[in-house]
Structure formats: structure tokens, C-alpha cells
């Protein structure tokens, strides 16, 4: 959805227009499920969290501000609420809110068949990313999957942008060896000419 379109739907929803509200649900249901699924495989818990989130949105619609990005706003709210639920459930952690003990997992189980070199690259990336600490994995996800900027990552994860940089460089450091290897590999394998679809 385009930013302006998103904003106009958000504003209609704030005025109490039901169709705009249901449009938000239609638009973000999948994305929120997908994001939530990275933290837990408990689908019922994700659904409960999305339910709470949307009920709260409607109830508080008049007092809500207009966020620069509705998607990031919803991601942040989902993440926050999901962590609280996970924490309550585990009852193991008594730490401060930003000191949660969470997992972040991306899966490649049901992928389409890739070209051989793509497959190889994916295996490498999968291997190295899955070894990163959860928070670093989440940054990689938010940047490479959701395309968020450092600032937006900080917003969604409720951490300062400097922490985002720090975490990101750590992640990249961890990725670097692999990246170097990948670069060599790509050169050696005579990487096919730049994909016109990508760079056109």
C-alpha cells in the first residue's frame, strides 16, 4: 500500500469508519501473522495478540496519533504485546521489558526450487543467520525482509538507533566471513550476468 493511501485509510478509520478499519485488518493480517510467527510457533497466541491489538485500535481510535508508517506502528504494537504474553506465559523472566528472552526464527522449509547457485547462497545465508543471536536476526529480518531503515528498525524494536547500528554491525561482522566467501564464490562461479529484472 502506498504511504498516502495508508494515511487516508488510517484517518478514515480514526473517524470511526468501519470499512477503513476492516481494510486495515485485510491489509495487515498476513504480515502481522508472519512477523509474529518469527517469535513463536504458538498460532493461537499470535491470533490472540492480533485480536487484542485490533480491538484496542478500535476502542482507542479517537485518541490515536497518525504514525508515519502504519505498518511499523502495528509491528511495534504486535511485538510489544506478544512479548508481554510470552513473558507472562513463561513466567521465567523477571527482567525489565527490554531485556526479554526471546527467539527469532526464519524458516526455509517450503521453498521453491532455486537455481543451483541461488540454492547454495541461500544455504549459506540460512546457516550463518540462524547462528546469530535473536535480536541480530530480527534486525536482519526487518532490514532485508521488510526493507526498514535503521531508524524504523529502532522504532519497531523500541531501541535507540545507536543500538540498531551496533547490533547491525555485529550481525554484519558475523556475516562478513560468509559474505567474503560468497563474493569469491559468486566470482568463481561466474555469476550470471546481472539479472535484468533486478536492475532494470
Amino acid at each position, binding site marked *: 500500500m502506498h504511504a498516502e493511501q495508508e494515511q487516508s485509510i488510517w484517518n478514515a478509520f480514526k473517524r470511526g469508519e468501519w470499512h477503513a478499519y*476492516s481494510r486495515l485488518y485485510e491489509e495487515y493480517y498476513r504480515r502481522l*501473522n*508472519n512477523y509474529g510467527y518469527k517469535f513463536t510457533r504458538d*498460532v493461537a497466541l499470535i491470533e490472540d495478540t492480533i*485480536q487484542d491489538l485490533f480491538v484496542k485500535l478500535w476502542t482507542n481510535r479517537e485518541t490515536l496519533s497518525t504514525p508515519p508508517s502504519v505498518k511499523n506502528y502495528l509491528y511495534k504494537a504486535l511485538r510489544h504485546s506478544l512479548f508481554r504474553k510470552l513473558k507472562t506465559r513463561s513466567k521465567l523472566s523477571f527482567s525489565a521489558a527490554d531485556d526479554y528472552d526471546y527467539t527469532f526464527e526464519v524458516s526455509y*522449509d517450503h521453498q521453491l526450487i532455486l537455481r543451483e547457485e541461488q540454492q547454495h547462497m541461500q544455504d549459506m545465508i540460512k546457516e550463518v543467520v540462524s547462528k546469530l543471536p535473536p535480536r541480530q536476526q530480527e534486525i536482519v529480518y526487518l532490514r*532485508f525482509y521488510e*526493507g526498514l531503515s535503521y531508524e524504523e528498525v529502532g522504532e519497531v524494536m523500541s531501541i535507540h538507533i545507536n543500538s540498531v547500528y551496533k547490533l547491525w554491525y555485529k550481525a554484519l561482522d558475523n556475516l562478513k566471513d560468509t559474505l567474503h566467501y560468497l563474493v569469491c564464490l559468486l566470482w568463481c562461479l561466474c555469476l550470471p550476468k546481472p539479472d535484468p529484472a533486478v*536492475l532494470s
Partner: protein
Amino acid sequence: MEEYEKYTLSDFLEDDSFVRWATNAEPEANVFWKEVIKIYPEKEAIMTQAVEIITAYRSQDTFTNEMGRQQLWNRIQAEITREEEPAATRVKSMPLYMKVAAAASLLVAATAVYWFFADHRESVHTAYNEVTKVVLPDHSVVTLNGNSTLYYKDNWTDGTLREVWLEGEAFFNVKHINKDTLNIREGERFLVHGRDVEIEVLGTSFNVRDQAEKTDVTLITGKVKVVLASLSKDTVTDVIMLPGDYAEFANQNLIAKKKIEKPQQSIAWINQDFVFTDALLKDIVKTLVQYHGYKVDVKDDKLLNLKIEGEISVSSIPELLATISATLDLDVEQKSEKHIVLSKK
């Protein structure tokens, strides 16, 4: 744009706008990056690699949960409706609420029953296993289950609150008078009093039952408000219930609330007065005698041990007798209205 001259692979991966473009978050940026390649053609390979890396990472599984989409949306709608003002006075414009059907069923049980009897009160009491229909002055119909009592004022006038008191179990089919949900008059409300709870509706059908230690409410369709009438007036709590909601109340507190799959089962007693599973003839005879005041003569005592395999679920005594006759191959002779004789054909 000069900065890109020295960009390494990691630099590209660190660059916000490059990442945005490579993740298709910003297709408009195509023009810009084509321009970069034009100026620094030596960077094309490395950019392609960066894109390939991001693309490989992105080709991960997506969890869409499409199966749950509609159901979750229903749950959200239901919860919002529940949180909105009840069917009483301060109803806000709410698209969902308007759609709520004027039919509901609920199941209530009160701990013990004490009633403040008003002077002019009618009462209907049923014996065990006796199901009776009571037509109230407003033409609402109450189906009373066995061993239950319904009290109501004998003078109902238009424009005054409709209220009844219940002990036991009953299914209410309340006449819907209100036409404008934004403007509800006193006479359009219908109130069922229990010890711990009051159930307020506009026009709906619901089921109310007593249990020893708690109050159960099951709503089938529509919407009702359950008021937990604490002795101190300042701690009154409302519970709005929606179709499929099941709630338990005890000591003027809500102690459990959940959605149930088949709320209709809570009113199965109305239509299935006679439910037997693998019954012996003597069980059926006993029911007829004990709960329905029948006199039953059986020609041969051995017949009493005949068994009807499986389930019988019928709604009237004639049907029940026909079932016995057919499955056990018996003659049923009707001596008088409540006197029958059973014999081998």
C-alpha cells in the same frame, strides 16, 4: 552520489535506500539506481551480488495463517460489539450492533434463590420433567423446564419495564418491541432477575437455569447484558454477552467466560424431552409413570427387560410410544388419556 564510488558489498547492504529498493519497498527508486550504475559501471557486479544476497535471504517461508483470517475477524467484531454500550440507553452508532439478531439464548443458574415478592405476582411452577409454556402479557413466551418457577407481575402496562423472576431453568422468547436501537424506552426493555444476576434484553430468546453453586449463562444468538447485582450498589458490574458466549457467575463475580462451539446444545432439553440411550423398556415406563403421571400396564413382566439399542430422541409421548411399538414389536393400547397397556403383538 560520489559516495558509491567506494562502496563495498557490505556498504551496499548497510545503505538504507539501497536496501529499501532491493526489498521492493521502493520500486520508484529504480531510476536512481540505474543512474548509479550508469555513472559507476564497475559497481554493477557488486550491486547485483548485494541484491542476490538479499533476495536469497528473502526467499524464506511466509506464514500467512489464511485459515484463521475470517474466524479471527469474527472474534474481533464480537469483542468490539461486546465492549460497546449494551442494549440499554447509551448506544453509540455502531454498524455491527445493528446487525445483531434479536434472538439470544442464555443459561443462568443462581446459587440459592431468595425473592422479594411483590404483592401482585403470578407464579407458574412445574413438576419434575414437566415442560410448560407460559405466555406473558406482552406475548413473550417462556418455556419452563421441570421443577422450575417463574414469577411475574400480574399487571403489565405499556411503557413500563417488563420483568420476571426465575427459579430453575427456562427458555425465553422475548417479544421485540424496540424499533430504534438508538432510542430505547423503558417498556421496550425486558429484565430477568436471578439472585446474583440480572439479564437485560430488548427482544430475544434465551435459556435460564439454576445450579447449586454457580450461575451459567450461554448465549446462542443476539446480545444481552448480564448485571451482577451486588448488594452495595456502587460495585455493579455489567457483562455483555454475544452469540456463543458462555459465562459462569458465582458470588456476584464473573468467574469464567469462553466461546462454546455448539451453544444450541444448552437448549436441547426443549425439543428433546425424551432422550434415551440403550434403554430398557422399564426405564421408559418409569419415566412415563414418574414424571408424566401415566398408568402403564404390562401384560408380561419379561417385556420390561426388552432393550432398545441406540438412541431415542423424540419430542412427544405419542412419538415415544410409536417408537416403542415399532422397535419392540409391541401393541400399545390406549385405555384412556394417561393409561396405556403394553402387550406382545
